[in-house]
């Protein structure tokens, strides 16, 4: 069942999303060569706790940390580790959410570590732009398929591929709610977008094939062909005046 949020609930969600966005910003500033992914996770966790919130991912389905930090060919759900040291040229996707006041926020960004290759930068730019193309379509009266098809069309025109196995999702009192928000699809299909819906749109785009696999740790998801993958995500609210990004730092 798709839950529509009242104005009061939306302002609670905005709080959770604001903290999520600031935590993501802190993570981004920490992405430097020589830093371990665990250090970034700890910074994120400490910040979220200091705001009186709880990291949405910690313990969720058993996930052991507060942020998913996925480097290069890791698509999503990378587990922060002190053994994973970032180096110049890496692309680092950080996905983080905060839970406060009974509501979750969820956002993600792929950061360059130092200087990255032109191809990597192009992938990041395209994925980031596809997120905004998807958000543009999140108007009341449109359908879920309009978002996914906009993302898919934008990146496939540039010869990238859309990950099929993982999708965006509704956000609210639970981290993952209905509806699913795939990053691919057919315009005019799927549930109708109504004011009060809060969804996380999160394109996961690969430089090579769309195929991904989950490693033995049951979390880390990598591209099957080893190509680079980028991930950008915002939690947005559908309002009568159009989409409103909730996960902004201010």
């Amino acid at each position, binding site marked *: 069942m798709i839950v529509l949020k009242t104005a009061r609930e939306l302002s609670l969600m905005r709080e959770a999303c604001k903290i999520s966005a600031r935590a993501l910003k802190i993570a981004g500033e920490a992405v430097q060569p020589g830093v371990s992914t665990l250090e970034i996770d700890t910074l994120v*966790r400490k910040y979220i*706790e200091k705001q*009186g*919130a*709880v*990291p*949405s991912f*910690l*313990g*969720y*389905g*058993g*996930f*052991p*940390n*507060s942020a998913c930090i996925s480097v290069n060919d890791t698509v999503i759900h990378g*587990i922060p*580790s002190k053994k994973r040291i970032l180096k110049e040229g890496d692309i680092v996707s950080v996905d983080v959410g905060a*839970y*406060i006041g009974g509501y*979750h926020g969820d956002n993600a960004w792929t950061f360059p570590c130092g200087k990255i290759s032109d191809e990597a930068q192009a992938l990041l730019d395209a994925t980031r732009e596809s997120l905004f193309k998807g958000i543009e379509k999140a108007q009341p009266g449109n359908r879920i398929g309009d978002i996914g098809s906009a993302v898919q069309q934008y990146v496939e025109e540039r010869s990238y591929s859309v990950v099929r196995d993982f999708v965006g999702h509704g956000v609210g009192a639970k*981290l993952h709610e209905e509806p699913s928000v795939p990053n691919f699809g057919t315009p005019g299909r799927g549930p109708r977008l109504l004011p009060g819906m809060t969804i996380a749109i999160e394109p996961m785009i690969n430089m090579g094939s769309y195929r991904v696999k989950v490693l033995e740790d049951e979390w880390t998801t990598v591209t099957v062909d080893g190509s680079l993958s980028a991930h950008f995500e915002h939690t947005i609210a559908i309002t009568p005046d159009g989409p409103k990004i909730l996960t902004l730092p201010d």
Partner: protein
Amino acid sequence: MDIVKGRIVKAKAGRDKDKFFVVVDIYKNTAYICDGKTRRIEKPKRKNVLHLAPTAEMADEFNSNRKIREILKNYRGD
């Protein structure tokens, strides 16, 4: 988000660092945690609340070691 009875938490310090537990009792700044295995209900581990990271999840029933193990089954420590 609080450390209260039933909250699932992750230990931040100690030899059980990075493992998940259920808070079975709490008094002021001292919590008592169990995982049903190495820290059983009969003798919970005392922890300073500052050394516990709360998750968003709560355990509804934690009156037996078996139930606690069941609840924590999917929680990984690294």
